[in-house]
């Protein structure tokens, strides 16, 4: 059985993505089998990149779109994540616990996935349970309901009956893509006749409210960042904190992070190492090191 999540990257909940990074749920889901405060598995190395994901998804982003009339539009986006390879990794890690819970309940099935494409291998009865018409939603949808918007009420998808109902109102195929794209860019006011083509139930006010990000998840350890990994001795100083001794001049601390100096090669040349070099080999080694020293000197000055 092959499954595909429609418009997965752009519709995933950012709250769920931050919950996975924090390794703790902020809401109950999966028919309350997972409750508020339960732990979620996550790759430990991703914790360090909380600041990056906070930058990318903690705020409404601006998307630049040029329509078919070459008119630019600046659109606000506050759902999902797309734009670089790290978002793919974040998406995969976010949905991994939910899909994994489904497969834990069905040990006879085996699954493989690449982001939003899923392949389920197993006995048909085990994969679809006992009632085929309703088995698939009960199998897959409850754990995923926390991750994605439902098709009804949010305007992302429209049912097949609606599609058939409005099939006669559709514009020509070559134009529909452009105008539906304009819908996606919130330009629907200029294309009122197409409201029957795409079920757009979101109001502009709702979109504006959604652009204000309220994500209660917090990192597990605030010092577990990629910055502190490379600069472990750097202390976080509160710029608003009053100085301990206001009369004393501020102490200047200069931190040099590069372990390089023009005469560093002398300390690396041990006596034992010189004894192992003979004749021209020794001279050539000295020439190389002096050449490198001169090169660094000129580059630095």
């Amino acid at each position, binding site marked *: 059985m092959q499954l595909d999540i429609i418009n997965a990257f752009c519709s995933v909940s950012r709250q769920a993505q931050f919950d996975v990074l924090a390794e703790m749920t902020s809401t109950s889901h999966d028919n309350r089998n997972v409750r508020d405060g339960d732990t979620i598995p996550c790759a430990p190395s991703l914790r360090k990149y909380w600041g990056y994901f906070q*930058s990318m998804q*903690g705020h409404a*982003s601006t998307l630049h779109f040029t329509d078919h009339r070459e008119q630019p539009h600046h659109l606000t986006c506050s759902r999902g994540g797309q734009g670089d390879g790290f978002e793919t990794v974040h998406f995969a890690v976010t949905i*991994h616990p939910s899909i994994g819970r489904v497969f834990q309940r069905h040990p006879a099935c085996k699954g493989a*996935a690449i982001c939003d494409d899923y392949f389920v291998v197993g006995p048909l009865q085990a994969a679809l349970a006992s009632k085929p018409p309703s088995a698939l939603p009960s199998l897959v949808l409850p754990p995923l309901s926390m991750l994605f918007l439902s098709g009804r009420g949010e305007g992302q998808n429209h049912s097949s009956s609606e599609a058939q109902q409005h099939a006669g109102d559709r514009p020509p195929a070559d134009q529909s893509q452009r105008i539906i794209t304009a819908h996606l860019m919130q330009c629907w006011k200029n294309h009122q006749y197409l409201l029957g083509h795409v079920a757009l139930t979101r109001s502009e006010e709702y979109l504006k409210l959604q652009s204000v990000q309220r994500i209660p998840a917090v990192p597990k350890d605030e010092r577990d960042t*990629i*910055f502190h990994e490379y600069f472990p001795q750097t202390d976080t100083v509160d710029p608003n904190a009053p100085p301990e001794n206001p009369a004393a001049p501020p102490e200047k601390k200069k931190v040099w992070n590069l372990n390089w100096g023009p005469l560093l090669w002398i300390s690396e040349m041990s006596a034992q190492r010189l004894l192992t070099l003979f004749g021209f080999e020794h001279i050539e080694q000295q020439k190389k090191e002096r050449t490198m020293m001169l090169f660094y000197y000129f580059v630095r000055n």
Partner: protein
Amino acid sequence: MFHDLIRTQLILPYVDFYEGHLSEAAGGKFFALEKPKNNVRPIIIGLTWRRAPASLSVAEVNSDVTNFLMSTYDNFLQFACCHAT
């Protein structure tokens, strides 16, 4: 050596962006690809300043995330991070 210094001293520690530029850094060029049955797929291409540190970050976490996606569950595997080696 110098590439490693640039990676570890100049880029990776500062992957979170300046707050005043977040809306632009997190955004990008937006367009739509046509799919069958008159559907479209929205595509976002991030800025180069965003994609470069993201690519380095993926290389940094690749082995750990791959291990997580491949070993958490007995009967479910994900290969999302395997291509980034």
